């Protein structure tokens, strides 16, 4: 609850206002009772002051409630704002390994659903609880003052109401969650069917799909009905209990009035209190549930906030010293979280002199991508050291290191922004000339100019969909614009067709001059850009040398070269088919 500290005065203020408003609410039935007494005793002169008192109490309550709602609303929004900022900033500090083990959806629901449930609790729940509690206590107190005996009878069902209401909340929530869960299953079923419609059609299995869907539908139906039954049973019951209290007051209080032991006004006040209390008593049960939810949400949130980032610049770390981009790995080993028994890299040594280009070749899972990720310190090795320009990457400022290393990953992720903004990702201040020059080198300028708004076309998740090859070329341009010391091309041209690739090669060759470059590729044509080829398998370096040397001396390389690398270029897949796949 530490995040409430900055808002403590406002919070207490809003609670004080809430309680004062509740005092007015409790006062009004008492005034009504006085008025009824005045009427019974034929005291016309008292009526106007009492009516004005009711009006005055109501106005006062209006003011108090408005202020209370505004203050509490603002505080809860501010807390939500602060928490989300803290949470997002914390995510930005956490190392990449953390995200490998987390589902994006889970993180997102923490930053949205969980935060909102905390906010609702602070904005409404906390106030409702104290307010309802106070109403019940105050109204009970007044009733006890008027007539202890009658109050006892009238309030007899009250604990039962709170109990039943909280029980209803307890059983209905899981039931409703299960409905949501089953709807999610049904959605998944529908989603799968629509995405796999070609397979369904190809095997003529429409009937079977319908049967599967029906099963999902009836699961939703059964659970919805169960949930409806709970609601149908509990909510009338919760409504009925206060009525019984009122009936008792009518019965026993009525006799007391007849016997002259109770004034008619007090009787009416009792009646009004009980009508008024039905709501708060029911709400107490509901808000209890709200509190439980908020606590659970808070726990989920702090689970992540308490996770310390494992890759950070050491305090006062110097920036990466100047250099040409010499990279050295010494006895490096790496294990990914959750895959401790399979090393991604083991006892690996590699030196790459400044300005050289090295191609990493090997089957998938051989550790190529892991190796280059270590250079940018996206992960820290479990054993050994990674040095860039002679310095251990763990001893320099991470930002300065990464600004000297540019990645083009195989999935070529673009942000929802214009093409120009995406290319200028590493340097917001880049001029249009620089952006276009980078695009030209990546052989992207031509197609970008043909886009609806040229360089200002929005792309990414909520923008225009580019083909895989186009995305890769933008990603290459983005990396080139960063003007890095070390350039890493991780399967960067896998979706580009053979003709375009030949053109990119020229631009790349130019761009690679004066930088250290790592190339991970499956095509011999791309591999041919390298000064040297490093063959990897099972997290180790198997061999290294030129293409000719390796074809001669390395059987493993020859096998890959003949099968894996060469063949896959022969012909490209239909463009429309690929676009279609991108849409699905």
């Amino acid at each position: 609850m530490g995040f409430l500290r900055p808002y403590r005065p406002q919070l207490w203020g809003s609670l004080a206002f809430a309680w004062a408003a509740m005092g007015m609410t409790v006062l009004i039935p008492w005034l009504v009772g006085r008025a009824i007494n005045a009427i019974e005793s034929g005291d016309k002169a008292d009526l106007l002051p009492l009516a004005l008192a009711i009006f005055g109490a109501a106005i006062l309550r209006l003011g108090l409630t408005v202020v209370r709602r505004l203050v509490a609303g603002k505080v809860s929004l501010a807390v939500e704002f602060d928490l989300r900022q803290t949470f997002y900033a914390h995510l930005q500090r956490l190392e990449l390994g953390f995200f490998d083990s987390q589902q994006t959806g889970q993180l997102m629901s923490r930053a949205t659903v969980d935060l909102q449930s905390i906010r609702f609790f602070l904005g409404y729940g906390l106030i409702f609880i104290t307010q309802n509690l106070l109403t019940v206590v105050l109204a009970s107190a007044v009733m006890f003052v008027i007539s202890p005996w009658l109050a006892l009878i009238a309030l007899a069902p009250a604990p039962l109401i709170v109990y039943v209401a909280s029980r209803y909340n307890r059983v209905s929530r899981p039931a409703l969650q299960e409905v949501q869960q089953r709807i999610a299953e049904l959605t998944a079923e529908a989603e799968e069917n629509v995405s796999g419609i070609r397979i369904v059609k190809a095997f003529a299995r429409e009937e079977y799909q319908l049967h599967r869907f029906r099963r999902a539908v009836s699961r939703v139906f059964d659970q919805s009905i169960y949930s409806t039954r709970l609601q149908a049973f509990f909510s009338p019951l919760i409504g009925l209990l206060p009525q019984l209290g009122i009936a008792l007051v009518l019965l026993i209080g009525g006799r007391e009035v007849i016997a002259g032991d109770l004034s008619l006004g007090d009787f009416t006040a009792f009646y009004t209190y009980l009508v008024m209390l039905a709501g708060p008593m029911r709400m107490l049960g509901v808000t209890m549930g709200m509190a439980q939810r908020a606590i659970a949400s808070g726990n989920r949130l702090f689970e992540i906030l308490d996770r310390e980032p494992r890759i950070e610049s050491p305090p006062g770390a110097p920036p990466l010293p100047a250099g040409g981009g010499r990279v050295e790995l010494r006895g490096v080993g790496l294990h990914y979280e959750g895959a401790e028994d399979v090393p991604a890299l083991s006892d690996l040594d590699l030196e790459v002199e400044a300005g050289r280009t090295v191609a990493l070749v090997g089957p998938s899972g051989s550790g190529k991508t892991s190796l280059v990720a270590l250079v940018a310190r996206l992960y820290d090795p479990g054993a050994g050291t990674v040095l860039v320009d002679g310095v251990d990457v763990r001893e320099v400022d991470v930002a300065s290191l990464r600004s000297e290393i540019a990645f083009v990953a195989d999935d070529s992720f673009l942000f929802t922004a214009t093409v120009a903004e995406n290319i200028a990702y590493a340097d917001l201040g880049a001029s249009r000339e620089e952006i276009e020059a980078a695009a030209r080198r990546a052989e992207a300028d031509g197609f970008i100019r043909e886009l609806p708004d040229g360089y200002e076309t929005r792309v990414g998740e909520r923008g225009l969909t580019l083909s895989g090859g186009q995305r890769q070329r933008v990603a290459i341009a983005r990396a080139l614009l960063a003007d890095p010391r070390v350039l890493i091309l991780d399967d960067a041209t896998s979706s580009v067709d053979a003709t375009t690739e030949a053109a990119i090669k020229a631009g790349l060759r130019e761009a690679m001059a004066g930088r250290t470059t790592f190339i991970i590729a499956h095509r011999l044509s791309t591999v041919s850009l390298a000064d040297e080829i490093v063959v990897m398998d099972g997290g180790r370096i198997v061999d290294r040398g030129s293409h000719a040397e390796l074809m001669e001396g390395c059987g493993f390389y020859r096998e890959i070269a003949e099968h894996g690398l060469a063949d896959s270029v022969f012909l490209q897949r239909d463009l429309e088919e690929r676009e279609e796949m991108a849409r699905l």
Partner: protein
Amino acid sequence: MNDVRNIGRLFASLWRLIRGEDQRGRKVRWLVAQLRPYRGRVALMFVGLLLATAAGLAPPYLAGKAIDSGILADDVGALDLIVVAFVAVSILYAAATYLQTYMVGWVGTRVLQDLRQRVFAHLQSMSIGFFTKRSPGVLISRMTNDIEALNQLVTSGVVTMFSSTLTLLGVVVIMLLLDVQLALIAFLTFPLLAIASVVFRIASQGAYRATRERIAAITAYLQESLSGVRVVRSFGQEPRHLDAMTELNEENRAANLRTVYLNASYFPAVELLAAVGTAAILLYGGSQAIDGEIQIGVIVAFVGYLATFFDPIQQLSQLYTTYQQGMAALDKIFDLLDTEPDMVDAPDAIDPGTLRGEIELDGVWFSYAEGAEPGDSAWALRDVDLHVPPGQTLALVGATGAGKSTFAKLVARFYDPQQGRVLVDGHDLRGIRQGALRRQLGIVPQEGFLFSGSVRENIAFGRPEASGEGIEAAIAAVGATEFVGALPDGVETEVGERGVQLSAGQRQLVAFARALLAEPRILILDEATSNVDVRTEKTIEKGLERLLRGRTAIVIAHRLSTIRRAGKIVVLEAGKIAEQGTHEELIAAGGPYSKLYGAWSDSAA
């Protein structure tokens, strides 16, 4: 001004609906007709609703009566009788509410489940072309979100409309019967309350929509920046994303603040109105009572009723939103249901029996765009003539966009050609029942799409009646025995949604086994091995020979070994057949194929 217009619009559209002038009238009548099988339950629902409303109106009256006829008349007998009535009415209310809630829930859910299945079944009857033109998210939303929105309208909407209207009318009538003058004073707060409620509802509708949009923007931004976390990290751009997030977060706060202001002005105002009404009734009614004009119990009853009519007014004002959303959903669902399936079997379509697998294309023109003209560049296939004898393997070769996949899709009759005919065993595909054709077709696409379920269920997808041995044999034939054996539950292992529990290569092996088990007469391999790694590929290649034997096959591939083995190679260029023949013939001819082959050998060097 806008608000007033909106209210006007609601009434206008309700009026059109009642008079049946609206297109929506047809849809609503259709929806009501869906209730017919459940008439009995609907009737019970209305019985419950009427009883609950009536019983809910009684308590304040009875309390007033208890004062006047029991307490003030010093009549204990009458008091007891009234309390008994009070309890009875309360129990009746609870019972009727149970009946009504349960029946509404049951009928609403059932009708919408029926509708959901109907939408799904309708989708199954649509052609592939229909699916490619629509985003999957939209189609899925028809079966989920839109049905939920309609559910809201059918259940809570209908109940609110009837019970709130009846309650309001009941309160008005009872008040007037009790005392006309006092009733008119109480009614003074009515218009204020009604206007305040409707204005609040409409204003907050926009405000709440804004908050939903803001939180959706945050979600989308989170989604993007978290899935791109690798790029963010490797370019060291964390501060920029933090700034963007701050901005979104601030917008979210501002949008929510508006709802705070709205709530802070509306709810306290309603409370004030209630208190003002109470004060007015006490003041006027009190002096009337002192003068002996009315009884005290009547005043107590009035104070009670004042508390009763705030809820229905608030609920009715909420109805507009529910109505709008439900109707919008109904429109969307109808748009879908009204779309006729575009590729239904002709009434005289035949079942050709077991196919020999002879394929013939006769002057086929095809375009994905509708209404393409002969000169357009939009044609994916132009005037293609081709004959594939039974049992032959045909390899399709060509550059990007040459029409290879399109060719295969026409043979599977995913589309019909605009001109010309596609024939199998001499039958025009349009004259054959689609199910009968496709059951003899095996397709392995580039990405092995699996459905959630076990490996076994997926392999048996095309032939659910297949025996355990048959499945084992298919697994063995594609060389998947080793990997399936290594799975935690072997062939019964769940593959997860879309098969995510398996690697791409494993999925593809399962897809091969699935195609093989279906024992197709015509096999289509559409770049089936382009996404698997070298080792899996080798495994598949061994099984491929077995797969191709004894059936007609159309292979779109990039592996030279596969292409070379084909009985016939067809080179497509811009939708036309450029040349055809065996590998040796085409190399010897020195045409486009030999050029492609040359380009390939260059890039491989």
